[in-house]
């Protein structure tokens, strides 16, 4: 999906600039970009809209973000921002709406093996109060007893209570066990509202190095495969369609195609001389691996187009200038503007640990499909120890030659208070600079200013360090004449 109007010089523009640029797009391109292609071509399923379309709906933060100027990025934004509308459209077209909670990407391939389903993650409503700069969802959660001592994921409970953010799901599949306590509280609130919930049991995973290990991975894989199987039974009941192994295999292949493209995209983004795409586009691309934003086939097209754009830029050596400091970002920032802020400070995000590691590995295609899903889930960011997560972050740093790590924590979550200190310590023991901040709730400008100050100081320090290192290297290089002597 490219046109002659494509501006080939990569840069980041704001919502108003995209609005102007959008006017030059050919109408044919807009008409040809639509979701749920299996339902035919309709006006209502078009999604190639500029970010400005969503501003009047309350997504105020879009006015502060910077977007990539490619049509591929526009398509990604349109696809991402139309997700909630898409779920309503699915319901209107008789599709079954399945809410997934807590597994963060592991269960979607199973759901999509049942025809006529749409999966979504209410957990991801945690972006919404920030995107809308509104406390509406938090206030609603507060009225159900989840206040500021609960993670931002409480916005999901607000969404369930208001019943205007997404249609009432036909089934909620909630993961319980080695997940965070805050989400468990959110799920209890949803249960209290009378929703049809299937619980997926997720025991913690013992690391080999843990002295208190109590079971092998083989036992756990077998157990989890059984949990996937039970979930398939619940889905069969709700959808009225029998489970079909062949369909699950096909769904896994499709999921792998998306995951593989995302993996290549990440590698290319990190390995190119100049950053070929922004951190915001990368995080929203990464999160497409969770539920494909409701349409797996379209998600593949969107991400493959983004990949092609990045590949093209990289082959021509094009990218954003003046982004020398290479960062790994740990824990997804509930406030996505933070990513733009660090980019404005001269940084680029070359690696991440957004708590979705279970959605990254390619799933086995030759083995029993439930076992394949179980093995994929074993990579979960939060189901193992904090050491495991620290190792994931260190691996990102080493693979992507990062200069430092930013950890964006969440006040009141159950894992951040315990793992942050340990991760910081693990990184520092390897001389990897790290800064840890807590994301401020929307509207708390003074609080956020402190975090931004710290981020700025960190970025300046890394930049200075990098310059000094470069200077020293330059001074150490002998002149040609001296070498000859």
């Amino acid at each position, binding site marked *: 999906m490219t046109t002659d109007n494509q501006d080939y010089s990569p840069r980041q523009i704001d919502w108003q600039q995209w609005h102007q640029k959008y006017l030059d797009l050919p109408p044919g391109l807009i008409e040809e970009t639509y979701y749920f292609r299996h339902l035919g071509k309709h006006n209502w399923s078009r999604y190639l809209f500029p970010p400005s379309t969503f501003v009047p709906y309350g997504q105020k933060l879009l006015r502060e973000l910077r977007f990539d100027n490619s049509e591929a990025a526009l398509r990604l934004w349109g696809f991402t921002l139309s997700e909630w509308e898409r779920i309503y459209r699915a319901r209107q077209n008789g599709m079954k709406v399945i809410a997934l909670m807590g597994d963060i990407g592991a269960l979607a391939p199973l759901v999509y093996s049942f025809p006529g389903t749409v999966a979504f993650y209410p957990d991801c409503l945690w972006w919404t109060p920030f995107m809308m700069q509104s406390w509406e969802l938090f206030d609603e959660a507060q009225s159900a007893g989840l206040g500021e*001592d609960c993670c931002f994921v409480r916005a999901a409970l607000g969404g369930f209570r208001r019943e205007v953010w997404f249609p009432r799901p036909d089934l909620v599949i909630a993961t*319980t066990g080695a997940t965070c306590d*805050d989400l468990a*509280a959110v799920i*209890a609130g949803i249960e209290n509202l009378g929703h049809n919930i299937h619980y997926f049991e997720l025991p*913690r995973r013992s690391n080999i190095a843990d*002295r*208190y290990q109590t079971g092998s991975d083989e036992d756990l894989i077998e157990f989890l495969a059984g949990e996937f199987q039970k979930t398939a039974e619940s889905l069969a009941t709700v959808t009225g369609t029998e489970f079909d192994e062949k369909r699950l295999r096909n769904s896994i292949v499709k999921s792998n195609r998306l995951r593989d493209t995302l993996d290549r995209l990440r590698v290319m983004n990190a390995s190119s001389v100049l950053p070929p795409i922004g951190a915001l586009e990368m995080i929203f691309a990464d999160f497409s691996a969770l539920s494909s934003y409701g349409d797996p086939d379209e998600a593949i097209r969107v991400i493959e187009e983004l990949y092609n754009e990045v590949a093209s830029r990289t082959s021509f050596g094009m990218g954003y200038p003046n982004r020398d400091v290479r960062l790994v970002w740990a824990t997804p920032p509930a406030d996505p503007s933070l990513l733009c802020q660090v980019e404005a400070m001269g940084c680029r995000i070359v690696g991440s640990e957004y708590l979705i590691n279970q959605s990254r590995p390619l799933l086995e295609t030759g083995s029993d499909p439930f076992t394949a899903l179980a093995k994929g889930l074993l990579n979960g960011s939060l189901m193992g120890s904090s050491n495991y997560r620290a190792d994931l972050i260190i691996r990102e740093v080493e693979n992507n030659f990062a200069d430092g790590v930013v950890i964006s924590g969440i006040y009141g979550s159950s*894992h*951040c208070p315990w793992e942050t200190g340990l991760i910081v310590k693990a990184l520092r023991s390897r001389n990897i600079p790290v800064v840890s901040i807590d994301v401020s709730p929307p509207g708390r400008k003074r609080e956020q200013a402190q975090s931004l100050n710290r981020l700025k100081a960190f970025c300046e320090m890394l930049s200075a360090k990098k310059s000094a290192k470069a200077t020293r290297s330059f001074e150490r290089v002998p002149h040609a004449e001296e070498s000859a002597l």
Partner: protein
Amino acid sequence: MNKSYNEHGDSALLKRLRELEAVELQSGKPQVGWIDRRTPIELIEAAGEMPIRLFPSNIHNEKLPGAVRSDACSFCSTLASAFDVNHFPHLSAILTGSTCDQMRRMCEEVARTTTIPMRLISLPRTYRRSIDSYFLNQIDSTWHWIAEVLGVPVSEDSLAEAVETRNRLRVWVSELRREGWLSTRELHALAGSVLNATGLLKLMDETIQTPEDRSGSIRLALLGAVVGAPVLDIIEQSGGVVVYDGTNQGDSLFVEPASPQDTPIRMLYNYYGMESLEPARRPVMPALYYLKKSALSYGASGVILINPTHCHPWGLSAKIIKEFIGLPFLHLEEEYGSLAISRLSTRIGAFTEMLSMKRTGNDNR
């Protein structure tokens, strides 16, 4: 070791318990720490070890800087701190069942800071319809682990005896509680005692006395994870009495087993894996029904829920519990280990006073 019960005005049971515990602690018997109510304490008893309930004292209320943030559960972080300062120097091993995310992360932290062998048993969060071999193996392998780590011979007979004895203890404690013959203070002491079930049965046999008349007191149900402050004293000073204790120090530890006779390991699985009702489990409704039924059957006229700050399973469920139980409700958060109890006194006093006025009003009508 639990020393939360009042040093003053002890009953015969409490006085004798203290004497026996002092002797037991001097016996040189290996000590095994346990934390959560889902820990199969019978495994420790069957191995002939001394069970030590790991309740940190009030002096260690801050984890060493940099390790754990202040928004961690104050009970979990205080317990982790206690290991930093070697507060439990004589432990041979630590055993615990799995409940919430913070509890497992606390265990991870403790395992990192001590060399004491530790076992965190994975138990189901959901209520399984049948025995699941994965979780059954968790208990079975822990039984063998205890033998290996402690170097003690264990047998199925000794485990069967430990299971049977503790079940008898539960049945008796439940009966006494229903009849009002065992105070909550005594219950806490039994729940945290270093004596095994055999010792506790003998103690009760020797010391149970006719209870004092508390008919004038406001009958309360106490809920929550663990109670660090002297809440029972405060409640009694305010004219209340805890008739049902759903905390991890109270009646919930002495629920009568519901499952039929089976092998010892399967009975432990049934009790700790399937029957244990608590708000951390899903769905949450069975635990809520159970708490409501218990509070009402004990004739409570009000509920006090107290949880350590940032304890999510109880703290974040408080509103649902309140609405579900439907009795007058007081929710308190306690910085575990903090000695600042005036705030608790004021609020509990106001609550019992309100209930007292309500009762007087009803009587007058």
